[in-house]
């Protein structure tokens, strides 16, 4: 059945008829080529953008919300409006116990302090943190380690530096671990330094010290500056956000409708807006690509119809010489599939070149807009399958047209 596909003569026929109408065949193929090019180029770029976003947010739990306290905007239970509300560790504990769907809750404290090392000094942000922070904001440590439970339990005077603070206080390639820095005239041992991420919520330059040390040194008592909450994957982060704020208002005697007392930034909602945009773009790409592809395949069908019309007499001669209608149809369908596939493969190759070009232009370095713009083999495979199917279907139209004319009428054609 498929023996003819490996027959040199079948292909001789295809090449002959291609060569005979070179310009027309090539112009026709442009349609399919363009469709595949668009599909590959756009899908690859969309993937590149997605990769770039993933790289930006990669170190960050994207289903997280940040909650801090502010001033009340409504009087409630005898309190006047404008009251400063303070978040406390017990608030955090209650939130963690009562709000459904929380994976991690990280309380944090922050302040600005003068930091000195030898003759260098600067004012930096100091954060009191739990080791848990490393779980929600993955730190890529270059030297040493992050805070651990032991540091917390023993109120140790240790510090983890961000990259740019290290750069300001230390020499290039100097190992900071075991060195001392002075924060407000108190010596801390540096235990680690981490690489700056692409996106940081809050400041990118900070010094992390154990939460308990911070409490003690800055006399914070039970207070916390803000809390970071990540939701379990199956829970809606917007709902967690809402529940948490409601609970906090309740705990702190704040009017239930007071929107100002607790502020927050919901990374999950922001991020899903971005991913929604990316999904929309991919959908658009498939839509545009396949629509163009179909238009291109129709162009091939159209041109084959004209070719068949022009070759009416030749087909008549072939039939007089003993070609069966099936053999004629098969030849035309093979031609259609061949043209479609050839155009498609050129499209895939040039689409690949475009992606390589995009990668060279925009995909280099840390701040790349498009990262690893590519399409999967599966997409290429799907595209080729679609092309083969469409090519076969569209080839059937001229094929049936070719054999619908009686050989005697075909021969009479001049």
């Amino acid at each position, binding site marked *: 059945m498929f023996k003819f596909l490996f027959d*040199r*003569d079948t292909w001789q026929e295809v090449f*002959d*008829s291609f*060569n*005979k109408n070179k310009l027309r065949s090539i112009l026709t193929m442009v349609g399919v080529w363009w469709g595949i090019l668009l599909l590959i180029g756009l899908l690859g770029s969309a993937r590149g953008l997605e990769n770039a976003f993933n790289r930006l947010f990669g170190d960050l739990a994207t289903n997280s919300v940040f909650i801090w306290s502010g001033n009340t905007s409504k009087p409630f239970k005898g309190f006047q409006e404008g009251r400063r509300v303070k978040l406390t560790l017990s608030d955090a504990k209650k939130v963690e116990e009562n709000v459904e769907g929380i994976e991690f809750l990280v309380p944090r404290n922050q302040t600005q302090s003068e930091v000195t090392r030898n003759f260098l000094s600067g004012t930096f942000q100091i954060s009191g943190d739990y080791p848990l922070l490393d779980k929600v904001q993955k730190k890529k440590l270059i030297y040493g380690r992050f805070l651990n439970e032991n540091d917390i339990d023993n109120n140790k005077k240790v510090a983890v530096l961000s990259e740019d603070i290290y750069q300001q206080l230390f020499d290039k390639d100097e190992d900071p671990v075991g060195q001392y820095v002075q924060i407000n005239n108190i010596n801390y041992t540096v235990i680690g330094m981490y690489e700056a991420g692409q996106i940081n919520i809050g400041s990118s330059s900070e010094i992390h010290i154990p939460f308990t040390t911070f409490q003690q040194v800055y006399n914070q008592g039970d207070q916390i500056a803000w809390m970071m909450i990540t939701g379990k994957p199956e829970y809606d982060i917007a709902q967690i956000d809402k529940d948490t704020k409601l609970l906090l208002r309740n705990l702190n005697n704040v009017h239930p409708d007071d929107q100002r007392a607790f502020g927050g930034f919901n990374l999950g909602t922001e991020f899903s807006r971005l991913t929604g945009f990316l999904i929309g773009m991919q959908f658009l790409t498939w839509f545009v690509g396949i629509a163009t592809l179909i238009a291109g395949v129709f162009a091939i069908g159209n041109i084959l119809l004209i070719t068949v019309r022009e070759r009416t*007499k*030749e087909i*008549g*001669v*072939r*039939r*007089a*010489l*003993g*070609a*069966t*209608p*099936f*053999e004629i149809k098969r030849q035309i369908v093979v031609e259609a599939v061949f043209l479609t596939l050839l155009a498609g493969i050129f499209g895939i190759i040039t689409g690949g070149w475009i992606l390589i070009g995009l990668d060279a232009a925009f995909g280099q370095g840390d701040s790349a807009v498009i990262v690893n713009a590519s399409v999967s083999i599966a997409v290429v495979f799907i595209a080729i399958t679609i092309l083969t199917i469409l090519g076969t279907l569209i080839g059937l139209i001229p094929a049936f047209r070719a*054999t619908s004319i*009686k*050989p*005697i009428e075909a*021969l009479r054609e*001049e």
Partner: protein
Amino acid sequence: MLQISQLHKSYPIGDSSLHVLKGIDLSVEEGEMVAIMGSSGSGKSTLLNIIGMLDEADSGDYILDGLKIKDLTEKKAAVYRNKFLGFIFQSFNLINYKNALENVALPLYYQGMKRKERQELAMYHLEKVGLANWAHHLPKELSGGQKQRVAIARALAANPKLLLADEPTGALDTVTSHEIMAFIQQLNDEGKTILMVTHEEDIANMCKRIVRLRDGVIIEDTKVEQVRAEQHV
């Protein structure tokens, strides 16, 4: 070889129909060389097309080599044409983007013969018509007479029982016509049965039998003294 009895054929023209063949009875023996003559509209081409299985009769019997040709599907007709018949056309009908050898090999391709065998056989037939040196030329590089000889080689390639020629000399000058006729006569001498449609008396006289048609009926069917074409060359 070939028996036809009470063959009728009409073509619809608008609401009415045109009765082209009105009961043809014809019998051709093996080795005969028959010219079918008649003015245009006499039905001679229609008769040839029916014999060539390119067209089908409305009624009547057609028996070719003991095989009744009736209710043919396109596929069966194609197989019979390939096996039993060789066609020679007035306008040669060579495929213009294939060279002489490939044109001759085409009927063999449709027989499913292997490429190498096919090309050897096609070359053999090209040699027979004296065009071995032109095997790799395209039809446009050949003269009219050469093209018709390629067409004859192609008709012979599948070793058909019956050669059908539709005005084989219609597009050729007198000298070339006689060359081609000499060649066809030689084929007949070798035993091939040949049926040809022509409206030229001198060409018809080079056959062994003339069948005259007028308005769809045979008005004359005579054996003639064959004029050898070589005399004119």
